[in-house]
């Protein structure tokens, strides 16, 4: 029997993260829906390290990550060999009033010296603050090809220019709407950063908390790109850890939290995500075991 499958004329961009003396990894480049072409470029699994541990952080994550300072946490994360390390500078947020061990830029100088993993560097989520802080961090990492974020409709200009001059890539976030995503990609491209260097974040919801909307938007986004919409052909990322550990289930038991994060991640991988940012090392281990069989 001849198996007839849909053929696609579009292609997803290939994204590289890392460079210079830093390790380099890549993702994307697909010409078919998730995992259906061979060989298939597997998604990247990132582990997230926060510059400060917030008091309302999930208790089980606290147990894993809080006993040590930022640099020790980075070393610990590195010991699990994630594909990418995600450094999150949350202390800059106006809502956070615990001081980090130093200014973000100072912390980053120390951090980059202790690890040669490719890096994702994210801010605190406050548009104004991030617009100020992220360009400084971007300068600090010049030519090391990090993935910076998160840019929104409000603050993309500075961030796009900064990534463009320092040769980084940028995460662009829009709330589950392909026309908004496309529009932001176009705006960023107009600032000099091509779609190949943009990573779309179509919002992330945890399992049981609106996951189905995000799952479907990923599928739609990927299909639109494969059908030829070049402005949507950027790779896609989901912040799975952050959302999963906020849930009621993840407050109840660590194992349930791990299940929640793992299965949320799996759903987004099925939907077409190319980069998954995780918070619990056990999830990294389980997903890697799966991807090893898969690709």
């Amino acid at each position, binding site marked *: 029997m001849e198996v007839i499958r849909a053929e696609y004329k579009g292609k997803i961009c290939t994204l590289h993260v890392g460079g210079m003396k830093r390790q380099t990894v890549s993702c994307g480049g697909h010409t078919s829906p998730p995992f259906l072409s061979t060989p298939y470029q597997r998604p990247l699994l990132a582990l997230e390290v926060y510059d400060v541990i917030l008091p309302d952080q999930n208790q089980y994550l606290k147990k894993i990550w809080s006993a040590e300072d930022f640099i020790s946490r980075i070393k610990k994360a590195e010991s699990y060999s994630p594909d990418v390390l995600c450094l999150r500078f949350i202390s800059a947020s106006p809502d956070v009033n615990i001081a980090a061990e130093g200014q973000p830029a100072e912390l980053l100088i120390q951090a980059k010296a202790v690890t040669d993993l490719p890096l994702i560097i994210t801010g605190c989520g406050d548009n104004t603050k991030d617009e100020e802080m992220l360009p400084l961090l971007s300068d600090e990492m010049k030519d090391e090809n990090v993935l910076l974020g998160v840019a929104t409709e409000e603050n993309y200009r500075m961030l796009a220019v900064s990534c463009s001059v320092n040769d980084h890539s940028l995460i662009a976030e829009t709330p589950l709407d392909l026309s908004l995503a496309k529009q932001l990609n176009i705006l960023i491209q107009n600032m000099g950063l091509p779609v190949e260097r943009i990573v779309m974040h179509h919002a992330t919801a945890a399992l049981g908390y609106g996951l189905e909307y995000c799952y479907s938007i990923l599928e739609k986004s990927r299909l639109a790109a494969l059908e030829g919409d070049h402005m949507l052909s950027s790779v896609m990322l989901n912040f799975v850890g952050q959302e999963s550990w906020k849930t009621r289930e993840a407050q109840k038991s660590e194992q349930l939290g791990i299940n929640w994060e793992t299965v949320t991640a799996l*759903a987004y991988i099925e939907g077409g995500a190319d980069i998954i940012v995780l918070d619990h090392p056990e999830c990294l281990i389980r997903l890697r075991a799966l991807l090893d069989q898969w690709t």
Partner: protein
Amino acid sequence: MMTGLQIYNQLPKTNCRKCGFPTCLAFAMAISQRRVSPDNCPDISSEAEKLLSEAMRPPMNKIKFGLKHNEMEIGGEEVLYRHERTFYHQPALALLLSDTVSLEELKDAIETIRDMDFELLGEIFKIDMLAIKNDSRNPDIFSECAHLARDFPLLLISEDIDSVRKARSVLKDQIPIILGDSSEEWIEFAHNADSVLVIRGSSLDELAQKSKQVQSHHFNNIILYPEVKNIKEALVTFSSSREMAIKSNCQSLGFPLLGRAGKDLVIAAHFICKYAGIIILETTDYEELLTLMTLRFNIYSDPRKPLMMEPKLYEIGKPGENSPVLVTTNFALTYHMVHSEIVTSHVPCFLLITASDGLSVLSAWAADKFSSEIITKSIKNSRIEDKVSHRKIIIPGCVASLKMKLETESGWEALIGPGDAPMIPQFLKAHWV
């Protein structure tokens, strides 16, 4: 499947309206969306009717099994991606039990499974079915186990037809599924014994061939089981099978698929997303099952209509004139999360639900569907002002910016609640009791 225009070309094109539609084209569109059947047009030629019915036949058969009068259905799917319409029949999760354990142990295991409740958005779900495996290879033991588990829809796994025969004979009140062999003897048995037969094959070719052969015996009650070596093969085989059935109208593959996830949560989750109709699981771990049930609930929810609550005033516990008043949107998920935390707090409350198109708090706020006007209107319409003596309303923490305007418009004081529902009990204790 045919497009609206192709269907239109088969119709009389007189626009006589006898079908209840203003034009033949409108009727054709309705057929293509499966809202009406072609024979609603009295003037359609018999060839055209035959052609259309054949073309509009669902690309995947629906299979019924389980307890009589309470049958389960799987299959009947029409799309590859849920956003194209919806997925209709969620995969059945079958927990695997072996017939080599003692009857006592089996009884306990069944009781434990029976007692498991999974609450999702206020609705209680149970484990769908059990799979019993004839490891003993003994027909008597196998049938005794089947008899013990007979209140559950059953999947009987055995390579020994005598065992299956015997087990089938003690299951009067259900249509079981049989996973054994697919030779003539088994087909005939399943056919006569009103059972569903699982057809196994190591490639799509083999499955398609066997399926054709079974159907030539006028037996359609089958499920296909691609015996794959690993997850990668599973993905390719399951996806190809679904795509062939739906896009190429390949009738031999137009049946639900069975996947074996073993003890692996992640593979089970994969099968939920990608196209299994039945998943055999070797776990009775509550937390794993809850995770899978939630994923299935999400993926099989209908994207065409978000689950909504009726916008009105809800009383939780027995609230009185001094009880707290909270407000949120009518998205079912939001409502249930807030509701369950209020219940946990043991503080009787009034919960005011606004008409916000079934959107979550921030989505509704961003779309101007959870504005100070809308909240004020809900306050007035709900008559909450007659029920409480105070004028304080707790709003979700993530929309703190509504406070000023809401206070001016409604005359109520707005208390900014926590951003996350799990903090509500603590908040109520600190600010109210």
